[in-house]
């Protein structure tokens, strides 16, 4: 079994454990692990020889997604004093079942899409669809703002995996720009979570509109 397939399997496992876990600390660790795995992809998803840019990119992704994001999330977790995601919109058991169904659908989908000749591994496009789905699912089905931010990070990971799966080589500047943008998004969301916890004493996004809005 080659290294690409191994990484894909670990990615599936991180996604499923994110869907299953209510302990926010554990979720942050999974997001960190997923970030490191995604950071290894520039080193194996190259058409030609490895250039200095591939190493730089891998280093950057591991640093940002594997170290900086988890640190930001942990810092926010400590300052808002929340431990667990309690009573999400979709329960944890149901989440895992939905996740497995989504995985099956992702594989089915990727078998029926005519990809260009060279793809990273047979499972890579499916894993990218699955990761995107898990990210969106976390945003939609969870209540805590922190989990929604993690959902966004997972969503962006999924998009990056798709790029790697199809050997899409972007200019280094564009990759840099994308990573920078995602970093600033998460940073801004972190600042906002801090403000939310100060204004509300919680970070439940379903209770943000406490004064009911006029038409919805």
């Amino acid at each position, binding site marked *: 079994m080659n290294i690409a397939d191994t990484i894909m399997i670990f990615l599936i496992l991180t996604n499923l454990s994110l869907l299953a876990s209510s302990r926010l600390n554990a979720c942050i660790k999974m997001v960190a692990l997923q970030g490191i795995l995604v950071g290894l992809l520039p080193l194996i998803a190259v058409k030609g020889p490895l250039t200095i840019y591939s190493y730089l990119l891998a280093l950057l992704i591991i640093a940002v997604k594997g170290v900086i994001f988890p640190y930001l999330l942990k810092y926010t977790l400590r300052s808002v004093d929340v431990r667990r995601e309690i009573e999400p919109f979709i329960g944890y058991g149901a989440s895992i079942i939905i996740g497995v169904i989504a995985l099956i659908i992702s594989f089915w989908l990727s078998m029926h899409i005519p990809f260009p000749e060279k793809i990273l591994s047979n499972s890579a496009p499916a894993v990218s669809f699955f990761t995107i789905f898990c990210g969106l699912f976390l945003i939609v089905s969870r209540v805590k703002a922190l989990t929604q931010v993690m959902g*966004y990070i997972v969503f962006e990971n999924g*998009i990056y995996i798709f790029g790697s799966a199809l050997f899409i080589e972007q200019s280094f500047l564009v990759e840099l720009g994308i990573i920078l943008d995602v970093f600033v998004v998460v940073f801004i969301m972190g600042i906002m979570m801090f403000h939310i916890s100060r204004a509300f004493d919680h970070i439940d996004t379903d209770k943000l509109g406490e004064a009911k809005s006029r038409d919805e």
Partner: protein
Amino acid sequence: MVLALLILVPAVGGLASFFVTQLFLRRTLLVLTAITNALLTAFCWFVRPEPILNGWISLDSAGLLFMTVSGILFLTASVYAIGYLAKEPKEQQDSDEGFFFKNTPENIFIACLQLFLSAMSLVCLSQHFGLLWVAIEATTLASAPLIYFHRHHRSLEATWKYVLICSVGIGLALLGTLILTVSASAIHNNLMISELMDNSQLINPQWLKAAFLLFLVGYGTKMGLAPLHTWLPAAHSESPSLVSALLSGALLNCSFLGILRIHQVCVYSGQSDFSCRLLIFFGIFSMAVAAIFIIAQKDFKRMLAYSSVEHMGILSLGVGLGGTGVFASMYHLVNHSMTKGMLFLAAGNIIAYYKTRTSTDVKGLLKRARATGILWVAGLFAIAGFPPFGLFVSEFTIFKTAFDQGHFFICTIFLFLLAIIFAGMAYVMLKMAQGENPDGIEKESPLMVVPPIILGIITLILGLHIPGFLNDILNEISIIFGAL
């Protein structure tokens, strides 16, 4: 050189504003940046600047038009901002719920305004889809602190929704960009718009359609097309009015530019049927959703926000119809930005005087603040598409295009929805303007009245006569985007 200045001047001004502590100096810096930007853009009308960065950043007709609109709006908004910020108290009481709140520190606000202008300029000047993505995401990031100016829980919710929904949407657009790369894998340097247009026969149609769909849904979220518009009413309602004016008049346009670029690729590679049909569908759907929510809308800024959704729908419809519809759509874009900017700035004045966003609490505007009252009533007729204002010309042309093409169903729905929206808005806005005024007459600061008047005069002139230079550039854009 000029292009680099267009992007760097606001960026540097913005970063500098973070550190300037003197109030007067900071506000002057804002206006100086706006004036410099306007002058540079005006220069580009006479002398088209050379592309830089290997053609990644280059000015074409569409970019020039969008930049001009943003530039004019930003100039008026920054002059308005001086008056607005002077009036904002250190701590104030919320009119709806009664709690006390503070504002964001002014240096962050002024800095982010300029960074926002810089990001929007980058969007207009990008000729590479990857760079376009980075720029559009940057506009989201620069505008988030602007929405969170009044620091309370409602604006926090609005900003959270804005950042999350728009970032997810733009993420989908990133997936679309990657799929576009796959569709154009036979082309070297395959995210440059010029390369894609020159080699359009090498693009795989199936993948291109998938890319277009993702672009439409992704950038359409940012543009405010229904059903992806859910962040729009809250963000426009809670942010300061000049920020709402910039969001409606400039930001939504720049996101539309993203959709137009991929539509351009579709047209050149023969997939225009697919893209046009989707644009028409989203256009009509946006108008319908806006019509439903405008009726009996109590918050007049929310009402203006839904009006923006409606007009974005009209833009999409016009481009989808093709032919003269594209010309009309671009003309509509210019007029809508001017009119909506005027309305939001006038709304800002109303909130400053009456301290409420509820329309039923506002009475006797024409008597209390004559200039704002006149702007408000004129704005109603302008935004609803009455002659002699500019929106009449564009809406009529779109109607005529649909009629000539035989889309009678679209014509009927178009007129029906416009009528509903006019009725809904007129009922609210006229009631606010008329009536007795128990409180005294407001002394209106010229800084807060002259900018919207200028915007109103521009749209009035454009309704009576299309200047030659504007006509030429609109023709150029129509040819690129499918009036073939």
